């Protein structure tokens, strides 16, 4: 698989490229975690675990969904179809992405993606013959706008969790059929008890902003780890058990 290289989409340069459909989202085959938007929490929480991942190098905490485990890659990937009822927006958006540059949002494409072709009979055009974006590209632009908005809201959400000191380290370990145990590190979820102890006014405020709903959904989504374990069934040396511990003492 060639390396991802996002470059700005240009109407003239990319006038005649076509996009091939890929219902399996094969580019995500090796993904374990994917950043998600605040506006995706409701849709994804019934399908996959939603957790916060701490990137130590950059010291950034991101809202993500977990698609699989180390050694397995993305367990929702299958060569014929995606094995869940929900797909994270950033996975759907590929091979498109956005960049923000002095408040201006531009559309990027992965120029190495095999989803782009210049053959007429496969794939759908990004630009009509007059150089205007087609409905397909406009749909992608709308998705990117939703993604951008959701990711900005996700940042604000994480800040609120930090502000009220609601983070709780999460330890997840899976046991494989061979007995090997794999730990995931640098994961966080929400400390429910601390949340319950917030002042009534604060709770009302967070409730109004949809924060409480999001917290609940995140906590409930941890049950989906069992689904991930089931989805490893077709793998060699599948996972057979998962242990989840939320450390609330901090």
């Amino acid at each position: 698989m060639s390396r991802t290289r996002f470059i700005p989409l240009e109407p003239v340069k990319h006038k005649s490229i076509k996009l091939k459909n890929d219902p399996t989202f094969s580019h995500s085959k090796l993904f374990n975690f994917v950043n998600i938007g605040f506006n995706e929490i409701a849709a994804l929480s019934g399908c996959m675990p939603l957790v916060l991942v701490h990137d130590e190098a950059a010291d950034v905490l991101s809202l993500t969904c977990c698609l699989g485990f180390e050694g397995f890659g993305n367990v929702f990937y299958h060569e014929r179809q995606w094995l869940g009822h929900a797909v994270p927006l950033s996975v759907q958006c590929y091979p498109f992405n956005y960049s923000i540059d002095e408040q201006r949002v531009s559309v990027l494409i992965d120029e190495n993606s095999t989803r782009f072709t210049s053959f007429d009979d496969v794939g759908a055009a990004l630009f009509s013959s007059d150089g205007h974006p087609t409905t397909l590209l406009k749909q992608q632009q709308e998705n990117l706008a939703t993604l951008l908005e959701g990711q900005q809201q996700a940042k604000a959400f994480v800040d609120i969790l930090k502000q009220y000191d609601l983070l709780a380290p999460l330890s997840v370990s899976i046991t494989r059929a061979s007995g090997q145990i794999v730990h995931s590190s640098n994961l966080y979820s929400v400390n429910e008890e601390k949340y319950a102890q917030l002042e009534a006014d604060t709770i009302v405020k967070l409730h109004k902003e949809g924060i409480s709903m999001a917290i609940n959904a995140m906590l409930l989504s941890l049950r989906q780890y069992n689904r991930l374990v089931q989805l490893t069934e077709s793998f060699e040396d599948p996972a057979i058990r998962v242990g989840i511990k939320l450390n609330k003492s901090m």
Partner: protein
Amino acid sequence: MNQIIIVGGGTAGWLTAGLLAATHCKPDDAGNLLSITVIESESVHPIGVGEGTWPTMRQTLSKIGISEADLVKHASATFKQASKFVNWHHSGLGNSYYHPFSAPQGSANLDISPYWLSMHTEQGQYASDVCFQPSLCDEGLAPKMSSQSNQSFVANYGYHLDAGQFIELLRSHCVQNLGVNRIVDDVTSVKQNEMGICGLSTRGHGEIQADLYVDCSGFSGLLIDKELNIELTDASHILFADRALFFQLPYKDPNAPIACYTQSTAQKAGWVWDIALQHRRGTGYVYSSRHQDDEAARETYANYLKLHTSDSIDASSFREIRFKTGYRKKFWEKNCVAIGLSSGFLEPLEASSLMLIEQSATLLAEQLPADKCVMASVERRFNERLKGMWESAINFLKLHYVLSNNDSAFWKDNRSNESIPFELSALLEEWRLRPVLESDFSRTSDTFSAQSYRYILYGMLDKAECATANSFYKRALKHVDFANKQMSLNKALIKQLQARMPSHRGLIDSFFK
């Protein structure tokens, strides 16, 4: 009634043949099929203009059995969402306005225009404030997502099409799929008796007879005028234009964006139409020879064209048509019905000619007398209905002129009281004091609705005139919140459509995949 002959194979002849054949396609109890024959001359060509339609054309074609895809592929058709009037009136808000085909937001429940009239501060242009379609037109966006018809959002639209290709498409469909007979020949003389027409002599096919004759012979009015001597009701004292120059402009770039409205730009003694097809634009200058001599008219027209092309323009290559504005005193006389240019002519300001052809042919197909003995009462009904439609169309076309503030002689004369039909001037007086109401147009022959009148009237009024037009009616405005909500919904819809709709050419592309 078993046999119908249609004289003339222009747009009128073939649309009429198609509608008649598609409506009466089964045998009667005696096993007889309705036989329809079109006679068209090889030496007299169809007029070759008439390229803008109403949304009614969609229904007409679907009745006849011609798909939109065929129209786009074989008649160079594009999508028409509005008429845009440029320089008809200079106001603080600009020099142009739209008459879109889609209704104002919320129309199914309430007409929000009186509320718009009383918005003093935030008021923009009427059509854009109440309807999303002007914005689609401005941005060159299509009225629907793709060639597939099963779509959630479709704005109202008609077509622009290539007149010559359209006739060929209609002809081959009528002959191949609807069993219409075609005779290529000249009608050289017509025989008449007390029942009406009793035979047509042709150059190569001898004498031909039928139970009913439809005159679609164009301006020559072979049967209705030359043979039956039915005169025109002259309307040239109301609508002054009597000539048209026309010319086709190719696109410089074959993939140029395509305008999805008919543009009508006011000129010294008339106006220029500009219609965008897939591979070219069709333009023409409609003017009054009483107000501008031919040479000056050619110059005016050439000046317009020069703004739109860098190619040199040769004014002697313009084609010219002379016409008389008016309509037959009777459209149906004995066993002869006139449809198309033979029945009268109105300048193509709102594409009313093709619409009147569709209406006449549909009415004929519906009311087709089973037997000669009931012909007279059908004749009376048909004539009454058509007369009403033509009068209604004339009033509506005149409306465009009377509201202008252009000061050249042509435009001033257009505002003179003698030139304005009484019914229209009475309504205009009332509309200075109150909004346009649905109930102002309650006859079935009212071809243009209150909605269309509002788009023209409020497209041209100034702010102060809007305010007085509503002061009396204010007492009846009980639904301010609803109206405001419609206007903000309109804004939201515009944003959404801008983010989603393909360009007009993008939509055309989708038919060729």
